């Protein structure tokens, strides 16, 4: 039971990093990113492939962040020129292209067969110890990321971010460069998603295109909405509730043993869909918000 | 008979009140001017009458019927027609379609023919999309669209804004003739002097309140009015 809780906490921590990144995108700069899972996938496969090639974990993690952030640069340059709706579609398409490349390039990624045997750190600590150590790593990285975002928000750069969100025109007239600010924020958020991908890859130790479908992006959107956009404290709450919903559906399985795997996946899909609709309709500012849209 | 009766109207968007307690009346076959500086709340008043602002309270009646209880699409049925300040035609519809699309007209074909008689410039271009019209033609189409339902009152929001001087005279001329065909007009205008000259009465709005009102003649003669709102002599 305890090890199960640890597992849930690790997954929750990974979603919390993803949500933090998305919150940076939408909550702080208003960029609608419907392709978050693309950055997650890049980070996951990058770190997995590098460590499988014998590089140390640290290098894998760093590469995960770097690659995701670098890919975000051209996408961001395109994105900031687009209308909201186009942006949503383009980012969604970006993540699908990433998934298609992963599916097609079997020599590199294993294609639909997947990529097994991804190394897991802390092997020397025994089975239980490694789990706890991994949880520690996830929590520590979350802590660092939160600190980073917090510092960012409080820094002159962060005030610039808020100014971009509130009044882009005034900012331009002050001679500031809102485009540059938005791009940098977009890259940082993507880097966080890449890091989350690396943490996921080394925890699950197996990757396949099935794990990077657009549904994951909307898991993260849901977590952000539950927590309330633009609020970092809400991120943890949202990610926590998301994991409870995802894992809770497993208990449904125990109650009704006849339910098949595919049916379970559909039920989860329906629950996420229902949550999205209900939150948008009735609690657009999140669980702790007052139900009025900003 | 009183057509439009507004008492203590408060209206606005979001949390702010823009119109902050206005009393206005328009009687049958009367032309009434509402003047006021930029941002005084004139357009907001017009939108409130038509039901297009999120919040509006007070008394708002037309021919004795409570407009506040009606949806915007039902308000024209009691006899009020509206020409907005901007975007007052459907750009992708042709001239004829702009007139056909109006709901609540008894005999569309006959009424469209009447309108094209009234505005000959439109008749020549009846199959042209409204987006291709000149400013003056567009304003004529907006008038024609509003007149389709044979309203008792026209609500005109700055009908002469952004028009060249000779077109301005033409528009005022059209308004002046409205009472003859049984239509009253509530004209919102920044060209207060010209508008008051064809009006029976007038109101002056400032910061969402009517600060002056009276017969058009008296307002035109008022020294304070001349100073503040008529732009000198």
């Amino acid at each position: 039971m305890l090890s199960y809780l640890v597992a849930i906490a690790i997954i929750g921590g990974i979603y919390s990093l993803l949500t933090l990144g998305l919150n940076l995108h939408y909550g702080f700069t208003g960029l609608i990113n419907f392709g978050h899972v693309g950055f997650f996938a890049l980070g996951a496969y990058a770190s997995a492939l590098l460590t499988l090639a014998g590089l140390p974990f640290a290098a894998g993690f760093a590469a995960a962040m770097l690659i995701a952030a670098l890919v975000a640069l051209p996408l961001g340059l395109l994105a900031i020129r687009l209308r909201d709706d186009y942006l949503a579609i383009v980012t969604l398409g970006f993540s699908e292209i990433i998934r298609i490349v992963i599916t097609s390039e079997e020599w590199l990624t294993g294609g639909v067969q997947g990529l097994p045997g991804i190394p897991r750190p802390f092997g020397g600590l025994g089975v239980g110890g490694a789990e706890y150590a991994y949880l520690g790593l996830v929590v520590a990285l979350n802590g660092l990321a939160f600190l980073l975002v917090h510092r960012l928000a409080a820094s002159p750069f962060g005030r610039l971010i808020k100014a971009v969100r509130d009044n882009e025109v005034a900012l331009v007239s002050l001679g500031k460069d809102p485009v540059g600010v938005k791009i940098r924020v977009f890259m940082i958020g993507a880097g966080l998603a890449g890091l989350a991908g690396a943490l996921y890859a080394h925890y699950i130790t197996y990757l396949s295109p099935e794990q990077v479908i657009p549904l994951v992006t909307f898991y993260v959107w849901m977590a952000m909405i539950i927590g309330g956009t633009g609020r970092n404290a809400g991120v943890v709450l949202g990610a926590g509730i998301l994991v409870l919903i995802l894992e809770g559906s497993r208990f449904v399985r125990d109650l009704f043993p006849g339910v098949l795997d595919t049916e379970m996946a559909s039920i989860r899909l329906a629950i996420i869909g229902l949550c999205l609709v209900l939150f948008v309709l009735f609690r657009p500012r999140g669980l702790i918000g007052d139900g009025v849209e900003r | 008979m009183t057509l439009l009766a507004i008492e203590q109207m408060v209206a606005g968007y979001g949390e702010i009140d823009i119109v902050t307690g206005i009393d206005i009346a328009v009687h049958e076959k009367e032309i009434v001017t509402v003047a006021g500086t930029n941002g005084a709340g004139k357009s907001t008043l017009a939108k409130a009458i038509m039901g297009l602002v999120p919040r509006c309270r007070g008394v708002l009646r037309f021919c004795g019927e409570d407009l506040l209880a009606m949806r915007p699409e039902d308000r024209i049925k009691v006899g009020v027609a509206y020409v907005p300040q901007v975007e007052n035609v459907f750009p992708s519809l042709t001239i004829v379609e702009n007139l056909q699309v109006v709901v609540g007209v008894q005999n569309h074909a006959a009424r469209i023919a009447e309108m094209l008689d009234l505005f000959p410039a439109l008749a020549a271009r009846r199959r042209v999309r409204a987006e291709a019209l000149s400013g003056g033609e567009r304003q004529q189409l907006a008038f024609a669209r509003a007149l389709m339902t044979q309203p008792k009152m026209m609500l005109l929001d700055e009908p002469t804004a952004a028009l060249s001087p000779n077109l301005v005279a033409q528009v005022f001329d059209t308004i002046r003739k409205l009472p003859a065909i049984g239509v009253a007009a509530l004209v919102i205008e920044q060209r207060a002097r010209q508008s008051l000259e064809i009006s029976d009465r007038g109101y002056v709005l400032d910061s969402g309140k009517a600060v002056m009102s009276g017969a058009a003649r008296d307002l035109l003669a008022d020294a304070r009015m001349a100073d503040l709102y008529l732009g000198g002599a």
Partner: protein
Amino acid sequence: MNAALFFNLLLNGVIEGLIIGLAALALNLVFAVARFPNTATGDIMTVGAYAGIAVQGLGISSTVLQMLAAVVVCMALCVVLYRLVFRRLQGRSMLAVLLASIGLAFIIRAAVFLIAGPEQRVFQIPLQRAIDIGGVALQPSMLWLAVTAFGCMAVVFAVLFLTPIGRRMRAVADNRALARTSGIDVDRVMVALWLLTGAVCGVAGMVLGINTVVMPENGWNILLPAFAAAVLGGVGSPVGAIVAGLALGIVQELSTPFVGFTYKIALSFVALIVILAIRPRGLFGAAVKVR
């Protein structure tokens, strides 16, 4: 590539392009009048195809009746979605409506999975001999699909441009507030819009299902190419949707021998990104109007 292969691919491309075009048409109708990209479009199409399969399961082999069932079911579904969700979101941000439509897409797909199962289904089309034109195999069923798709488009245009309700739809698309003050009951126009959209989705879902197989993911897979076509053709433009859909379908098919099956799906998207990089407002500008 020899000529026969080329023409075969071209033919497939036209059919695929018509399917993309129909889906894009459904997207653009909603976009023009209700002002949001309806990501549930694809999954509504899927429901239509399954309605047809259900009718087939009853022993009714008439494709026309199956198509009719698909259309009716999709129309009903669209009106229900509007009444339950989209109407309540009027005046809310684009993102809010967009997310709600994603949620609805998930719910619909999950329901299809749970009710119909993950297995592939096929429409039993009576086999007819292919017409051979110089090595190009033209299936009569393909011809019928093309005729149906064009017929559906013709009906949409007739409704939009020849009927009073179509005129009102275009008026609401142009300017909702002015439409209301012209006495147009926007709610009724929206119901008509969703009925029309549902009909297009029903036909599109059936054409897709007959052309290939029926699977729960069918609609979602066509959504991205349809979005690409919608943007390329000018968001909100019905004509543009069809032209761009055809172009994308043909390009996708013709490129298959070179890029392989999986990448052909990515192709329409790469095209979209390239076009948007050059022209951020789409190929024909931002025509947020029914033209």
